[in-house]
């Protein structure tokens, strides 16, 4: 097991290393490594533009994937992720609200995204108890659809109200989800909270399995108590909101990566959490590298992950790899 994790880790480092030198300077596709010493412009480009962006992408992939894994475990629903539950849209609304009311100040965007993310998870928990179909999974998905629609229309209203010259472009651009404007100043402040969140979930990687147990069973085992569940969900929302506040709405990663990892490594957190983190990070780095190099301009990352995610989802479901069982 340790060996597999180590292998995945080196693979991730390798992908990140390659990505750093892929780009269109000085000529398309690859920047020779020696330019790091020989060319001041190349050095600045790699260290001040590509490197923060690379780190932002890796943290984004790891955070969204692990959050998806936690949501899926806590809701016993392989389709649960920030997008389907409405957490992404709620955090997005929170961020857009902050952009309009306080300008483009990063701390406010973050706090507002986090608060609305937490609100949405409570609403999902509440609504999925009120909605009464035969299936708890359908209840959750209904709740998620409703919440996501409410916050999406909220975003619509904000766009309508926004100053079309200043705020609107900011919001629209940011809603597409991309990392092209990432600088050290924007990514450095979020790194600690993301690393702390990830470390906590890593440390709890066996404990999180209790989330999937029957309520009375976990009670008898003294695990998966309400406050423990809420704490773990809070960390997952914190990670999602942190990422959304610097990258905008990047969907599908939290849905796809944990499902792929589960089919390969199994469901238990000891095996899945390390793999989810590293494969999620690697996947996001690859997607973002494609996003900035595939065409001379830039493809928003959120669009790329949605296309690839949808394809992967169709493949997984038609191969019978996502099993939904009540």
């Amino acid at each position, binding site marked *: 097991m340790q060996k597999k994790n180590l292998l995945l880790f080196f693979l991730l480092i390798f992908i990140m290393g390659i990505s750093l030198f892929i780009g269109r300077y000085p000529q398309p596709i690859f920047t020779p490594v020696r330019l790091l010493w020989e060319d001041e412009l190349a050095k600045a480009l790699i260290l001040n533009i590509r490197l923060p962006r690379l780190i932002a992408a890796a943290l984004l992939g790891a955070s969204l994937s692990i959050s998806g894994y936690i949501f899926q475990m806590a809701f016993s629903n392989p389709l649960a992720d920030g997008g389907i539950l409405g957490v992404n849209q709620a955090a997005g609304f929170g961020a857009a609200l902050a952009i309009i009311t306080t300008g483009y100040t990063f701390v406010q965007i973050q706090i507002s995204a986090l608060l609305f993310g937490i609100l949405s998870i409570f609403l999902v928990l509440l609504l999925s108890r009120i909605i009464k179909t035969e299936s708890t999974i359908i209840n959750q998905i209904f709740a998620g659809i409703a919440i996501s629609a409410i916050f999406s229309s909220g975003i619509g209203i904000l766009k309508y109200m926004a100053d079309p010259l200043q705020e609107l472009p900011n919001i629209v651009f940011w809603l597409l989800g991309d990392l092209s404007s990432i600088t050290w100043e924007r990514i450095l402040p979020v790194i600690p909270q993301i690393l702390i969140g990830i470390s906590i979930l890593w440390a709890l990687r066996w404990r999180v*399995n209790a989330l999937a147990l029957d309520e009375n069973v976990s009670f008898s085992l*003294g695990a998966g108590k309400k406050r423990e569940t809420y704490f773990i969900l809070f960390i997952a929302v914190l990670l999602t909101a942190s990422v959304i506040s610097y990258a905008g709405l990047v969907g599908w990663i939290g849905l796809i990566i944990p499902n792929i990892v589960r089919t390969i490594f199994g*469901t*238990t957190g000891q095996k899945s959490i390390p793999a989810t983190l590293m494969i999620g990070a690697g996947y996001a780095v690859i997607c973002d590298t494609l996003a900035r190099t595939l065409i001379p301009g830039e493809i928003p990352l959120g669009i790329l992950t949605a296309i690839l995610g949808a394809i992967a989802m169709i493949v997984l479901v038609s191969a019978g790899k996502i099993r939904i*069982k009540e």
Partner: protein
Amino acid sequence: MIKKLEICDLSYRYAEEDHSALQDITLNVTNDNIVAILGNNGSGKTTLLLLVLKKYIPQRGAIHFLNEKDGTENEIRIGYLPQIEKTPYGFTVSEYVMMGRYPHVGWLNMPDERDREISHSVIHELQIEKLEKKHLGDLSGGELQKVRIARLLAQEPDILLMDEPANHLDLKNRRELLEIIRNLKDENKIILFTTHDPNDAVEIANQVLLMKDGCVVAYGQTHTVMRQDNLQKTFDIPIKLQKINKKTVIIPGE
């Protein structure tokens, strides 16, 4: 290690209902006993188990566990096997059985060598080694029931609460399961299990609690409680008792 379970005048009413689910239940069980709780659906059997589990708080009465060592309630572990369980999605049998070790593993810790040993030995005892790598979703009803009991035993509980453990099992599996429960008695544990079938109780229980509409019809040693009048009152139908090969067999109907 547990010495005794005392339940005094226990009453419980669900918040949304206007009549009591349980009324004045009193039990006294020492650690070499298997107690069968018998009654029709809705007689309060599951509610009683959940009260002993301390999942629900009784409005009246009390439950005491007495510890062998110091007569306190310290370190008494209660294991619970629900009748219907939302089995976790996608886990293998060995991973699921290991979850029984949660009370023994610290919050930020991983299961260690001893936890692995115990869950292996439980799996070995129940002879389900060949299922270890299988997913819970791929098991048959009888296999799943044994796996769930393995999870319960891996917890090393002092009190075992089993809700309809033999329900929906075929004859062979039912037989094996009752045998497993009977063997647990020798380990100084208290076992409470519910059942619809009085013959299960005769087979393995030392004590029987007959319940109807949340009240006790009769409680005591199996052979004294299992009488025609008590059983007819509990189940609301005519019941005959017959000796076949020195075993008492309970037959519903005229």
